[in-house]
């Protein structure tokens, strides 16, 4: 029976491949010139633990200095006020991390939550049902829209996070069993009232490479992949999130974050400074002290704003110019075979490539670059098992933005773990694929029908990105 399914599947695959390539009997696993350069000439060849920390090549001395200053602001801890280092004070009063680099360690990926430990690149968004006039999530009384589990001296942290786990079991077509651990989060030590029943969304920090290129994508380079009504009948829809731009006071296409809820890099970074570290900027200038957090409100701040526009600009320049590592092992046979599978299974349907940046970029280097992020940056229904059930602008509780896969194979090198997906629940790439549901259900089932060798080939390809 199993054999029949595989045979049928192989034939089907072959058929589809034929139809695409007119005269080729089967798509050959061939290296294509330059396929390892995911960002053209801007990429960096690095396999070191600093692989996500390099600037794109070609910056002038002055730009390198700006990059260095931004790097410093990103890496160094912010301290509570008042401090001698006034340029770096204003942390909190409540916060999740003391530095950007606490969560994005070496510009990389945060870890899954571990019970009893303070989070390291993990946080929980909160909200009440409904939307405000901007379409944004409604805050929870006493807590706002994000849980801060740490605080400065003398200030109450908001609450601590607790996770329990449910085991989900499954079997590959070849009989190999697997297990997935589904985290279920709750709260303890709530300081400002019960959080029972609030909408919540767990998030881990993403690596921060290539962000300037995503910024420079014109909207239509993203919406060209949209297929809201699934007109092509491939089971995959994809739609853009339109979110509030707090800088320009308008609705714009969302590009950043797990739900594509930030329209610009500036809003994403200013939001993180505000929500994760309690630092004010000109964009989010109010202290993050939801009523009734009076001690938080009364604490001395680090200036108004705590992060000056000039500092914010330097952080943005730094973030925009972090290079994407070029691919590795791209000529190995298993990787090339995996590449064919990646396309034939239609993983590429969401993890899309070949977008071209425009001319509205953080610097001229980032203009008119064809990129292969392996993401369409659109929202997709990923099914009930992955759902956070917390809407975010247009994104429903089951929708997530396709995660770019560039750099994915280096997370283990940079961050010493392979936690993937929005809360890091997948222990590795294989588990991440198995978590796919919703629009990706068929693709996942087809993956499960592959032979162990082909599954490994596919994973080798993803690891090469």
């Amino acid at each position, binding site marked *: 029976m199993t054999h029949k399914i595989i045979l049928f599947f192989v034939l089907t695959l072959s058929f589809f491949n034929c139809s695409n390539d007119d005269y080729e009997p089967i798509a050959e696993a061939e290296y294509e010139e330059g396929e390892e350069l995911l960002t053209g000439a801007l990429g960096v060849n690095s396999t070191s633990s600093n692989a996500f920390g390099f600037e794109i090549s070609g910056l002038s001395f002055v730009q390198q200095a700006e990059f260095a200053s931004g790097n410093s602001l990103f890496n160094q801890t912010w*301290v509570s*006020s008042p401090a001698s*280092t*006034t340029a770096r004070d204003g942390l909190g009063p409540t916060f999740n991390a003391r530095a950007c680099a606490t969560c994005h360690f070496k510009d990389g990926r945060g870890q899954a939550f571990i019970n009893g430990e303070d989070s390291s690149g993990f946080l929980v968004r909160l909200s009440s049902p409904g939307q405000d006039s901007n379409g944004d999530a409604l805050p929870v009384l006493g807590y706002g829209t994000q849980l801060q589990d740490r605080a400065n001296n003398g200030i109450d942290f908001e609450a601590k996070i607790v996770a329990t786990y449910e085991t989900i079991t499954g079997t590959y077509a070849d009989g190999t069993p697997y297990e997935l651990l589904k985290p279920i989060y709750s709260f303890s030590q709530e300081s400002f009232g019960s959080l029972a029943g609030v909408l919540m969304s767990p998030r881990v920090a993403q690596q921060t490479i290539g962000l300037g290129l995503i910024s420079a994508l014109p909207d239509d380079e993203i919406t060209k992949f949209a297929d809201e009504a699934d007109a092509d009948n491939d089971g995959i829809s994809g739609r853009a999130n339109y979110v509030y731009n707090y800088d320009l006071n308008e609705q714009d296409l969302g590009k950043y974050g797990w739900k594509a809820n930030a329209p610009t890099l500036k809003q994403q970074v200013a939001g993180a400074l505000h929500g994760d570290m309690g630092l004010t900027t000109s964009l989010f200038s109010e202290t993050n002290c939801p009523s009734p957090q009076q001690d938080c409100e009364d604490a001395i701040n680090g*200036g108004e704003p705590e992060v000056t526009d000039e*500092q914010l600009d330097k952080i943005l320049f730094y973030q925009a110019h972090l290079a994407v590592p070029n691919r590795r092992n791209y000529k190995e046979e298993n990787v090339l075979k995996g590449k064919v599978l990646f396309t034939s299974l239609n993983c590429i349907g969401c993890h899309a490539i070949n977008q071209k940046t425009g001319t509205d970029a953080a610097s001229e280097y980032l203009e008119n670059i064809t990129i292969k992020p392996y993401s369409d940056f659109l929202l997709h229904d990923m099914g009930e098992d992955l759902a956070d059930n917390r809407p975010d602008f247009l994104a429903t509780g089951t929708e997530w933005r396709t995660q770019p896969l560039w750099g994915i194979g280096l997370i283990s090198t940079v961050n010493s773990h392979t936690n993937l997906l929005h809360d890091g629940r997948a222990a590795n790439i294989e588990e991440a694929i198995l978590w796919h549901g919703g629009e990706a259900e068929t693709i996942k089932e087809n993956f499960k029908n592959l032979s162990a060798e082909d599954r490994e080939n596919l994973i080798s390809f993803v690891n090469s990105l």
Partner: protein
Amino acid sequence: MKFKLINLLYLLTISLFITACSNDDDGGEPSVTVERSAVIENYSNLVYQSYLDSYNGAVSLQTAIDVFIETPTDANFTAAKTAWLAARDFYGQTEAFREANGPIDTENESWSLGTEGQLNAWPIDESYIDYVATGTETYAGSFTSIISDTSVTIDEATLASLNEETTDKSISTGWHAIEFLLWGQDNTTPSEDLPGQRDYTDYTIADDADRRAEYLEAATDLLVSDLNALTTTWAPNGDYRTVFEALDEDVALKQFINGAFFIAGDELSSERIIAPVDSTDGIDGLGQEDEHSCFSDNTHQDIWANAQGVYNVVFGSYGSISGDSFYDLVKANDEEQAQKLKDAADEAMEKVNAIANNAEPFDYLITLESSTDANFGVVMQSVVALQDWADEISASAITVGISL
């Protein structure tokens, strides 16, 4: 007589060696072969001696602090500060041993110590430790700095645990915490050329005087103990010394020269010089306290010591330690590149000394410059020279078959 004979034999051996080596040349001057193992051994000796000096400096500081706490007078307070400044020069030179995959900043190996953050993290969280500016004592009291929170037992273990949490970032221990407890915040304007003005009565009649003294003692003890561990592990037959000397020679060489490359090209030039130059916040909006030794105004000396540490590593020379070096190895392979390395090193030291020996303090100098200036002043000139030096270190590494 015996010595002479040995010397003669030694000379003979050397001569034979040189003759043998002349085959490798293209007819030019016969060059001396430099053994990688000798370079690595000399580096190990240099690291050990540097940490030993740093440890001994910290012990002197500990003694001075103990005297001050026993007899808290203004003179003893000054003596403690002087001891901090003296010890700091030794430590600053050891920073060139960071980012070399060594014990100070690795976490996961059996020989790892991972104490860099505990020793030297910056900026420290002042109000987490103590009251800050005069007039904020009440604030610190109601927001419970560690010193004002009498429920916290102050000892080495507690400070270490309060410092780190689960992140790799420190906030309340090490050189700068001790510096803060000795000098206090520097709230003077840069043109006054004054460090922090903490009064020694903070340790006699001020609120929490006893707890402040306990903190100062415990933080110093922790510093001494961390430096002792580094010294011990680098001592002959020490844990890490053994691991290091067993590494593949190219790996060992790559690791240690990468440390020098990192300090010159990144940590010192970018993090410690460009960042403060470009900082626009601070007192009067000038950002002059965005400098590493901001309480003692010793940053000019920190900069010298960091650069000198790189120099020590490149040329294999420190105090009484001298032997085959990375530079010698480069010279044996490519004299032209060796000259470039030497020139870049001398240029960088000259520019760094222009800061260290300047009539104006660093926190004032950085208010005069920007990284976008058309013509750089002394501070940004040092950045250019340090980064050029790093480039030459990298180019030199390639000539000996190592890619950084």
